[in-house]
């Protein structure tokens, strides 16, 4: 992410909300009720979850899928699509 955070407060707001960096500030994970957890021992690294995540909140780190919990909204598509049932939706810890 190269965009700098410019939504830090009202004082330095840009004139137009067409701007950069707002998603650094707006962590949409706050909308999540249930949380996907990958059992990495059952994961075949097929990356189907990475392909299907509608929020692109799954990254590939060291050849494995890793969920970015700052932006995962908990829709459960990754768990539903995982062929090895390696992703479980679990209760969100608030």
């Amino acid at each position, binding site marked *: 992410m190269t965009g700098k955070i410019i939504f830090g407060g009202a004082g330095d*707001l840009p004139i137009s909300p*067409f701007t950069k960096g*707002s*998603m650094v500030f707006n962590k949409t994970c706050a909308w999540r009720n249930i949380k996907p957890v990958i059992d990495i021992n059952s994961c075949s690294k097929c990356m189907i979850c990475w392909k299907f995540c509608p929020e692109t909140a799954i990254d590939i780190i060291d050849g494995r899928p890793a969920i970015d919990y700052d932006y995962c909204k908990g829709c459960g598509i990754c768990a539903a699509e995982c062929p090895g049932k390696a992703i479980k939706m679990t209760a969100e810890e608030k």
Partner: protein
Amino acid sequence: MRQLMTGNYAASYAVKYAGVQVIAAYPITPQTQIVEKLSEMCAAGELKARYINVESEHSAMAACIGASSTGARVFTATSSQGLAYMHELLHWASRARLPVVMTNVNRAMAPGWNVWADQNDSLSQRDTGWMQIYCKSAQEVFDSILMAYKISEKVLLPTMINYDAFFTSHTEEPVDIPDAEKVRDFLPGLRRGRIMDVDDPCAFGTLVAQDTYTEFQYKIQESMQDAKKVITETCAEFKSIFNREYALTEEYKMSDADEVIIATSTMFETASVAVDELRKKGSKTGALRIRYFRPFPSEDIIRALSGKKRALVLDRNISFGAQGIFCQEVLAAAGGKGNMPAISGVVLGLGGR
């Protein structure tokens, strides 16, 4: 050079002189002639603008928003149902702070189908964050478009230039078309840096949550209020170059008047004739025109009405269940102020009557 032309062609020529770069429009009576003329100018190469044919007014405004986001000077025109169809995008243009300029030829809303003068189309867009001007003549249409680009590009809010269907749109009047060089001095080319730039990408329509949404709305309100000063300054600069005077309001024989007729657009011209007739009979009558509806010139109206006995607001529009819309606004401005006249309103002239 003075030429005989309709209000619609005055709009087309102003757009050409303003050096507009992108035009996107969809035809609707009584606006069609504006964009017909512009498409001829583009086809003949006398206006170097990108003319985008779109399938609706909604798309016309969307195209203007996109082009304006890249820093282009843009134009569209519409009327009545077409303006209503743009409604969602009107909010987008103002809240994105884009200086889009559009003419709207005031035409009645259907049903019953009626193509004649009526202000309910643009007044229904009151709260979309657009500055709104109501013009009384073809010359004012021409001049207002040039000034609107200058004002919008400073204030960073869009402007809607309104004028009466047929009374202004299709009636030929002498219009003084200035030298192109003088216009360029008044309104130079590109206004500022781009919002959207491929070399410095940013998001179009970013999420603005509870913590800052109010602040963005506050900035728009603040800019609308500041716009009154920008409008006054721009009118003064315009007068110094072109020798024609404009302001937020216009007064006719107001200094010694006891009673005031408040009107907008061409109805002000009729009101001025009525003022002369009433004065012949011994009444001390004056007329006040509200030229800018947004920002609403409350201060100028209060100043003009101060010490008068009676004021009558003529409204070619109606807010069903309430009253004429300009009357409501005048009453709101005068509310709680001392030395105000008794203000009443009448709704008339609907559908070009």
